[in-house]
C-alpha cells in the first residue's frame, strides 16, 4: 500500500492504493470514473485508452503507481462542460458508435492521433486505430468520424 497522487481530468486525486493496483482499477474503482472500460486482458482491445501526460496509453497495462505525479485525461475529461470535444461531436454526427462500449477508448485514441497528425489520411486513420477493436460499426463510420473530427480540430 502507499499513497499516490495524480491529476485526473484536472483534479488532483490522492489515494491509498495497493502496489498491485492497475491504473484502470484506480480510475474505475478508486475514483469512480467508469467511462473507461475493460474489454480484454491482453492489452489489445483499447477500450481502456486514456491520455497520460498527453499521449494515449492503455490503462489496463499500467500500475496506478506508475502514473504517480502524471496528468491523466479520461473520456469524462474531454468535453468542455456541456460542449462536446470536436472529436466527440464528429463521432455523434457520423454515427461512429453503436453500443458505445469501445467508444471512449476509440475517441481517446483518435484525439491523440489527430493531435499528432492534423492532415491524417484514411489509411493512417485505419492504421492508427490498430489498438482499438470495435465489434459493431465495421469501422466505416469510425473512420469517417475521425476524418471529420480532424477537420474540426483544425486539419
Amino acid at each position, binding site marked *: 500500500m502507499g499513497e499516490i497522487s495524480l491529476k485526473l481530468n484536472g483534479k488532483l486525486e490522492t489515494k491509498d492504493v495497493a502496489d498491485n493496483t492497475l491504473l484502470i482499477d484506480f480510475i474505475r474503482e478508486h475514483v469512480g470514473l467508469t*467511462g473507461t472500460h475493460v*474489454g480484454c486482458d491482453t492489452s489489445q482491445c483499447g477500450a481502456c485508452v486514456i491520455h497520460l501526460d498527453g499521449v494515449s496509453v492503455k490503462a489496463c497495462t499500467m500500475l496506478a503507481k506508475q502514473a504517480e505525479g502524471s496528468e491523466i485525461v479520461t473520456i469524462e475529461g474531454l468535453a468542455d462542460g456541456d460542449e462536446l470535444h470536436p472529436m*466527440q461531436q464528429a463521432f455523434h454526427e457520423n454515427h461512429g458508435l453503436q453500443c*458505445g*462500449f469501445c467508444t471512449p477508448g476509440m475517441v481517446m485514441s483518435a484525439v491523440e492521433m489527430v493531435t499528432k497528425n492534423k492532415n491524417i489520411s484514411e489509411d493512417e486513420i485505419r492504421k492508427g486505430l490498430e489498438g482499438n477493436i470495435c465489434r459493431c460499426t465495421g*469501422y466505416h463510420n469510425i473512420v469517417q468520424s475521425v476524418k471529420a473530427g480532424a477537420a474540426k480540430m483544425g486539419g
Partner: protein
Amino acid sequence: MNEVTKIDGIGSSVRRTEDKKFLTGKGRYTDDINRPGQVQAYFLRSDVAHAEIKSIDTKAAQSAPGVVGVFTGSDIAADKVGGPICGWVVPCRDGSSTKEPPHPLLAQGKVRFVGDAVAVVVAETMEQAKSAAELIDVDYNELTPVVDFVKADEGAQIHEEVPNNCYFDWELGDESATNKAIESAAKVVKLSVRNNRLVPNAMEPRSALAEYDSLDESYTLHTTSQNPHLTRLVLAAFMFAIPESKLRVIAPDVGGGFGSKIYVYIEEAVCVWASKKIGRPVKWTADRTQAFLTDCHGRDHVNDVQLALDENNKIIGLRVDTVCNLGAYLSAFSVVVPTILHGTLLSGQYDIPAIYTNVKGMATNTVNVDAYRGAGRPEATYLLERTMETAAKEVGMDPAEFRRINFIPKDAFPYQTQVALQYDIGDYEPHLDKAMEMIDYSNFEKRRAEAAKRGMYRGIGMSSYIEACGLAPSAVVGALGGRVGQWESASVRVNPTGTISVFTGSHSHGQGHATTFAQIVADKLGIPMENVEVIHGDTDKTPFGMGSYGSRSLASGGSAISKAVDKIINKSKKIAAHLLEASEDDIDFKDGKFVVGGTDKEKAFGEIALAAYVPHNYPLETLEPGLEENAFYDPTNFVFPSGTHIAEVEIDPATGVVEVVDWAACDDFGNLVNPMIVEGQVHGGIAQGIGQALLEDAHYDENGQLLTASYMDYCMPRADDLPSFKVGYTNTPCTHNDLGVKGCGEAGAIASPPALINAVIDALSPLGVTDMSMPATPQKVWKAIQESQSVAAE
C-alpha cells in the same frame, strides 16, 4: 424510397439521441454499477474437456482471506435450483424428440468442456476470490474428449441422456421428390462446405450483479442481457421457482450482443442464488478469456450439398445434409438455429421446386454453440451462394445471369417455398442490377487485367441472400417447437404536458432504439422527437417482451409501438370530438393537430393530453381519463429482407494475403426509419462476415483445449483489415406490418461470407483453384496457390 415528411420523422437520418452519454463516458454498463456491501464472485473452471469429478476439496479456500463463501454443484443441488433450459426443440426423423440433458449451474459429477464451472468463490475482492480459487483441489478422472463433431457419434458418450452424442436428427422437405430431381437432372453440382466456428466477442464482457432484499424477499439482477424479460422468466420459473414479481431484471447499457447475450448463463443464476445465501450483493464480470471459453459460440456446421439443374440451367432440386456442433449443453436457441432458422432458408431467392434437408446436431466437449449474428441464416446462405457460384462456373454462365434465371419472379409473390416459408414480397433483380452497377461489374475484367500486370490476382464474387427475420407468428413458432411467443410489446404513455414515454419489450444494445422508436412516435403524432423518451431493459418498468435478436426489434417492436400510438390517436380523437363539440367521425388528425374536417376548429395534441389528465371538461361517462395505451403485436409472418452483396478482392500470391478492395451492398429492407442507423447496421454486419470469411476461427485442439482464447490468437477484424463499404437500397415494403419495414441487423453478416469467398475463388480461378474454406487466411490461400502451381507443373 420513403418520402421524408419531417426533419426527424420516419425516413430521416436523425443523429442518435443515445450518443451523448456514451461519448462522454456516462454510459452505465453492468460492471459500472456497484452496490453497497457488494462482494465478488469468481468461478473456478475446468481445464479439462471431459472428466468425472472424483472429489472437490474447498476447505483451504473457505478459510482464505476475504472469502465469504465457496460453493460447488452439491450446494446448488441441495437447494434444488434448476439449470438453464433449451427454448426450442425439434422432432427427430425417428419420431423421438430432441434429447435435452440437464445443465447444472455448477458441475455435478462431470465436467463437459474447458471452462465448465466447477465451483464459485465469493470474496470481498476479485483478487481474493481468485487466490482462494487456487486453493481448491479438484480431482478429475479424465475421459476421452469428443472434439471432432463430425465423428462425435463414435466418441465417448458425453451425456447419459444423449445416445451417440446426437441431440437430434431433424429433416425438412420432400426427400423423394428431391432425390428424384437429382436423379433426373441434366447436371448435379456437388459441394461440401464448412461453416467455421466463431466467437461472438461483444466488446463488453458478460457481467452480473445480483442483490437480495430480505425485507420483501425479492431479488434485483443487473445483467448483460439482450432480453431481460426472458432472463427473468427462466430464472424465476425454471431455476428458482419464485414468482416473477420477486425478481427484477435490469439490462442497463449493454455493450453489444450479437446473439451471445440472449441466453441465461449459469453465472448470472449463481450470482442470484449466492446473493441470498450470503446476504450481500454479488457481482461477477468475465474477463476476456472467460468470454472466449464460456460465451456461446456460433456456426460450426458442415454441409454436403447437391444442386440439380435441368438442361436450361434451371434449378430443379436441392438436397443438403448437415452435421452441426452444438457443444456440451443445449442453450436457449441452439436447436432452432441449425434447423428451423437454417433449413427454411434453403430456397434463398430462387424458385426451387424440390428441397430436402436433414440436420444432425451433435454434442461435443466444447462450449455451447448458439445464435450468432444471423443464426442459421448465414450458414444456409453460405452453402447456397457458394453452390450457386460453383454451379454457374461449372455450366459456364456468368454468376449474375445464372442467379437471374433462377430468381423467383417478382409476380410470383407471395411465394410458397418448399421449406415451409411463404415470402410475402420481394423483387430480386433490381438489387442485383444496382449492386452490379455500384461496383462497376461490367468493367471488372479490365481491373483484373490491370491487377495482373502488378502481379496480383483480382477477383469478384457475389451473394444474393434472403433472410427471414422477426420470427413469427407465435402459433407457427409454437408448432415448430418454440416454447415462447414471438410477439412484442409496447406501452405508450402520454404525460399530461404532452411528452411521451415509450416502454418497449425489445432491448437496445447498440441498435439505436431510443432514436428509431422515438422517430416513429414523433412522426405519427406530429410532435418533436425531443418530447419522446424510450425506456427499455427493466422488467419493473417495461411490459413483458421478448428482447432483441434475429433482427426483430423494428418489425415486431416498432410495429407494436405503432399500434399503441394508433390507439392513442383513436382515444385522442374521442377527446378532441368532445372538446370541439364535433362528431368523432369528423375529426382528422394531421401534423399534431386534431381538426374538425372542413373547419378551422382544432386542438393541439398537447391540449388533448392535458384534458385527459385534468378531465374538467371531459366525457367521463363514456371515456376513461388518462392517455396511455399498450399493444402486443404478434406479426402474421416473418419479414424477408433480401439483397445482393458483391465483393472485390486482390490477392498477393507471394504471401496469400487477401485484400478486400471494394464492397457493394444493395439491400431491400422495406421502408427505412433511420437510414443512417440502417447503414451502420449493414457496415457492422459486413465486417463480421468479412471476419468470418478471412480472419476468425475458434480452434480447439484434439484434447478440447481452446487455443484461440484471446485476441493474441483469435483474429478480430480491425480497422485496417476492412475497406469502406458502398451501401444502397431497393424497397419492396413489407406487406404485413404497418411500417412496411423488414429487419436489417443481420443482413450484412449473412450476405458477406459467400460473396467474399466467391471473390477469392474467382481471383484464384486462373490457377485452377475451385474451393477455399473459411477463413481464407494468408497461409491457406498461399498453400492453395502453391498446390495449384505444383499441379500445373506436373
